[in-house]
């Protein structure tokens, strides 16, 4: 019998017990739908992590000021300003593979007209924008004179624009940061949430000298040209670990640390943190898909169960088919096609439900999803394989029946 004939026989046999066929398919439907939703959600989560890595840059080193001990109390990273602007300049000068941006940060209340907003003030240099791969949506970066002369100019993030200016054009407006008037010269592009969930766009960038002298600093800080953080970008294609060690030894040398002394700064390789996070999100996506595919296997067992019942119920039919000349492969094919039809139909319905559910999740829960055509193809292939795998045993059982006994079966 050809495949089309087998398919017709299978459809007819399945139509005899419509409810039973539907219930049998339900296992596959749920399994395939679950796999598709899980792959979509897992893929979405992974994509988000990848984008965050993109937005932060995957080749960043972050140097934080060291800890200070005060009367036996250790105050943690950043409690002491052990880094200075000159460290950043030295890195830029000594290590050509790296671009360093010193930064001093703090919170401040910002006022424009009759609105105000509490935000983060970032005192830094133009290198910071380069290091963070952060383009300007509007306006310009700092000019050399503004950097050296502590110019009262600032570049604002998108959240600040939204909260402070609403619909007005921020360029050229004068805002007050801690009562000091600043002219807005640029607007940063949207950057979104950081990996830790903080809003990266809630920021105002000012020249580092201005920040130290006018906004965040004290006379003490000004004398040391101290900074809290130095961001370092490693040139594309270089091993961040090598550059990390170069930076570390340069800073230790500059800070005149003895060989046995601990670092008075903290050096973090963000590339490694990111890689770990990406790996964990990939494992999570894989785990989700694996859990979902368990339900597919359960659905397959349901098919095997019903096919075994069906073979028993139709023993006489099988005997008759053998009596009129059905060969082993005819009977095997008939029941195998029936099982595969069940699983494939279930798979198709499952795809429809899974895709709909994934889109609904994206719409209503606001989760990021990625619907890959490969995952749909994979689900179909998997459903087919399940049908063949779990249909084979019942079909073989049918094909191996003894015609004499099958015909006598009550």
């Amino acid at each position, binding site marked *: 019998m050809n495949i089309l004939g087998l398919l017709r026989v299978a459809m007819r046999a399945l139509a005899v017990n419509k409810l039973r066929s539907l219930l049998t398919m339900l296992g596959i439907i749920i399994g395939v739908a679950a796999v598709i939703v899980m792959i979509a959600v897992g893929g979405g989560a992974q994509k988000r992590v990848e984008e965050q890595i993109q937005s932060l840059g995957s080749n960043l080193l972050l140097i934080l000021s060291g800890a200070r001990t005060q009367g036996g109390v250790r105050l943690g990273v950043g409690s002491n300003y052990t880094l200075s602007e000159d460290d950043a300049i030295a890195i830029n000068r000594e290590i050509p593979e790296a671009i360093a941006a010193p930064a001093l940060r703090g919170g401040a209340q910002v006022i424009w007209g009759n609105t105000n907003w509490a935000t983060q003030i970032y005192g830094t240099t133009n290198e910071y924008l380069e290091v963070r791969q952060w383009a300007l949506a509007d306006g310009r970066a700092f000019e050399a004179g503004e950097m050296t002369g502590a110019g009262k100019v600032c570049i604002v993030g998108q959240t600040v624009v939204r909260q402070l200016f609403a619909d007005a054009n921020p360029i050229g407006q004068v805002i007050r940061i801690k009562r000091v008037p600043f002219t807005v010269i640029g607007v940063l592009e949207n950057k979104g949430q950081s990996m830790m969930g903080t809003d990266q766009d809630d920021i105002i960038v000012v020249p580092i000298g201005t920040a130290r002298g006018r906004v965040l600093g004290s006379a003490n800080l000004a004398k040391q040209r101290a900074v809290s953080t130095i961001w370092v970008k490693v040139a594309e294609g270089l091993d961040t670990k090598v550059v990390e060690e170069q930076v570390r030894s340069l800073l230790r040398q500059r800070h005149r640390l003895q060989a046995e002394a601990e670092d008075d700064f903290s050096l973090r390789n963000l590339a490694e943190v990111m890689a770990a996070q990406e790996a964990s999100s990939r494992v999570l996506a894989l785990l989700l898909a694996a859990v979902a595919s368990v339900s597919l296997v359960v659905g397959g067992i349901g098919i095997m169960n019903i096919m075994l019942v069906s073979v028993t119920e139709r023993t006489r039919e099988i005997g008759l088919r053998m009596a009129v*000349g059905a060969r082993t492969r005819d009977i095997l094919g008939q029941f195998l096609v029936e099982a595969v039809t069940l699983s494939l139909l279930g798979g198709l319905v499952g795809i429809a439900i899974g895709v709909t559910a994934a889109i609904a999740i994206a719409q209503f829960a606001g989760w990021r999803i990625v619907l890959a055509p490969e995952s749909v193809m994979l689900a179909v292939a998997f459903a087919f394989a399940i049908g063949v795998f779990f249909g084979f045993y019942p079909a073989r059982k049918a094909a191996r029946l003894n015609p004499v006994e099958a015909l006598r079966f009550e």
Partner: protein
Amino acid sequence: MAEPLIHTRDLLKVYRVGDNEIRALDGVSIDIARGEITAVMGPSGSGKSTFMNMLGCLDRPSSGEYVLGGRRVSEFVGDELAEVRNRSIGFVFQTFNLLARTSAVENVELPLVYAGVGAAERRSRALEMLAKVGLAERAGHQPAQLSGGQQQRVAIARALVTRPLLILADEPTGALDSHTSLEIMGLLQELNRNGLTVVLVTHEPDVARFARRVLRFLDGRLVEDQVNAAPDDAMAMLRGAAVAA
């Protein structure tokens, strides 16, 4: 004498049940010529069903020889036997064994499906056979919509459709009333008159009297081989009954 259609020598079928050996067939040797109509009789357990399964290539003998139409089918296994059943043998069963929810014509087509005959030729040959058994206008009916006699006619059409060498009828009238039984026997006799070899398996003497030759089995052995010089004519009996009524 021409080569017989069926030739068996010392057919033996042994079943083992625990330590016991049961000889369902205990050395059966027989020749049946083309065009014969033969009844195989015997009480249950006599081996007549086993003999019929051997003749129908549904089962293999433990030993002995079976030649059907010149082929030593006792040597055949598996799909070779399926091929013999498909091409050379037509089965008629007591309970008809039609596929439910399948039209009469599709039931008749079934052996041709396994013979690999194309759809169009299948349909025309099946319709032709249905016409031959007088059910041309019932081709689209499903078994549940047909009477017992009509269902058995469909089954006979199915048995005939591959133009077999042999029709094997196992209690073909067992599930039918006496009038319908006469119709079915009349049909089988008519087919026989047109040259078809028919083997009937039955325990009813009422059926056996339509056969020219009666074989009796007991305890797996052929105990009697009787020629019935003047078998009853089922069609004539039907006409007689109609006149009497």
